[in-house]
């Protein structure tokens, strides 16, 4: 009778992986990348608005984080530190590329006779194509000041707690809460021009 056995592979902590990496074990890069690639990408995508730029920011962020491990003193989690580096890389990239595409938002209007009237849809999330809605949200995010934008994305997309966001951005929890409040106000004001919210 065959007996199946399973070997439990110990899951190494981030600190253990980083220690191995600094000792020259490049194989741990695969594990680190697998753990945080999606989160880093989603944050970068929200800040930049497109896949290509987001991938560049993630690449830049990972390289910077892993070549500057001496700056990571372990006072915060590696996740929050990495997201800080990635979000800074994304913001830098956004400034460099200085994309100021103007988007015609007419597609969000009901018809030509309703210029300036928000499209009052009973359920905008269903009625509007997901891509269009994301574009609208991207534009709304771009209208926020950088600190508010970054704070909001880290909380809403990376699902970091107030404390984690505060650690990532090196600000107080009160500042996190305040920025989130004003970011939501502005996003709502922006979106309400186009959709009912």
């Amino acid at each position: 009778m065959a007996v199946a056995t399973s070997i439990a592979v110990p899951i190494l902590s981030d600190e253990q992986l980083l220690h191995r990496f600094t000792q020259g074990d490049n194989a741990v890069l695969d594990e680190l990348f697998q753990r945080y690639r999606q989160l880093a990408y989603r944050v970068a995508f929200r800040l930049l608005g497109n896949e290509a730029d987001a991938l560049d920011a993630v690449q830049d962020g990972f390289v910077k984080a892993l070549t500057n491990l001496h700056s990571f003193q372990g006072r915060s989690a590696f996740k929050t530190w990495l997201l800080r580096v990635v979000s800074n890389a994304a913001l830098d990239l956004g400034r460099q590329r200085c994309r100021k595409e103007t988007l015609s938002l007419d597609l969000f209007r009901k018809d030509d006779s309703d210029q300036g009237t928000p499209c009052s849809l009973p359920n905008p999330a269903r009625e509007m194509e997901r891509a269009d809605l994301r574009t609208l949200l991207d534009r709304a995010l771009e209208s926020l000041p950088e600190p508010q934008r970054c704070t909001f994305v880290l909380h809403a997309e990376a699902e970091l707690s107030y404390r984690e966001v505060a650690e990532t951005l090196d600000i107080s929890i009160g500042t996190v809460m305040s920025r989130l409040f004003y970011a939501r106000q502005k996003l709502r004001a922006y979106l309400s021009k186009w959709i009912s919210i």
Partner: protein
Amino acid sequence: MTVQNGDSFVPPSPEWLAAYVDGELEANGDLAGIRKKVEYWLDRNPKAQDDVLAWSRLKKIWDTTTPREPSEKTWASLQGAICHGLIQAPQPTAPRNRSNRRRGLMVLACVAAVILLGLGVTWHLWNPAEQSALPGNTHPSINVEPFLVAVDDEVEILSITGRDTETVVVGSLPVEGNIELATSGEVSLSWMEHPLKQSEIPLVGVEEDPPMIWAPPRMDP
């Protein structure tokens, strides 16, 4: 916990409203009291309730627009690019070696700063007159006549014309050495060439060529 006279309850701060929307005010625990106050206030403020509901709808819109994940091929390509970037970038050093190197660089920087400071002080102490006598010194400022200033008992002010000012400079430019300025209490106007009209005030002004003398507007009776 009951709220006495809830109508006088101060609206919660934006921070607490944000925390309430994000579910950070636990029903149990230290923040339970704040949660109850926020809920009490929201019950009595429909506009604020609308805001909170709008934020919830915003969250739903946000969740429906989560970026699509790249393909595995894209991830693999990205990981390869990161590895390539790590190979090209300077290798991270172990913390101990790094701190020693950093310490060494700091010491070197401090020594360099001290040397530069010493050179700067020495340069300022060096007598410019001697410098002009040095062979091979061809700096254009060498031939400029030094700033001459008359001491107070060498000058008698006979008359002053022009606009007023708070200080008086007596001498010929350029100036060297200490400048002695007459202050407003040290100069008095005893005579004017042309009598003043009723609304005018005496002004002591600037001649076209220095020396320039200024005097305060006050006059001795």
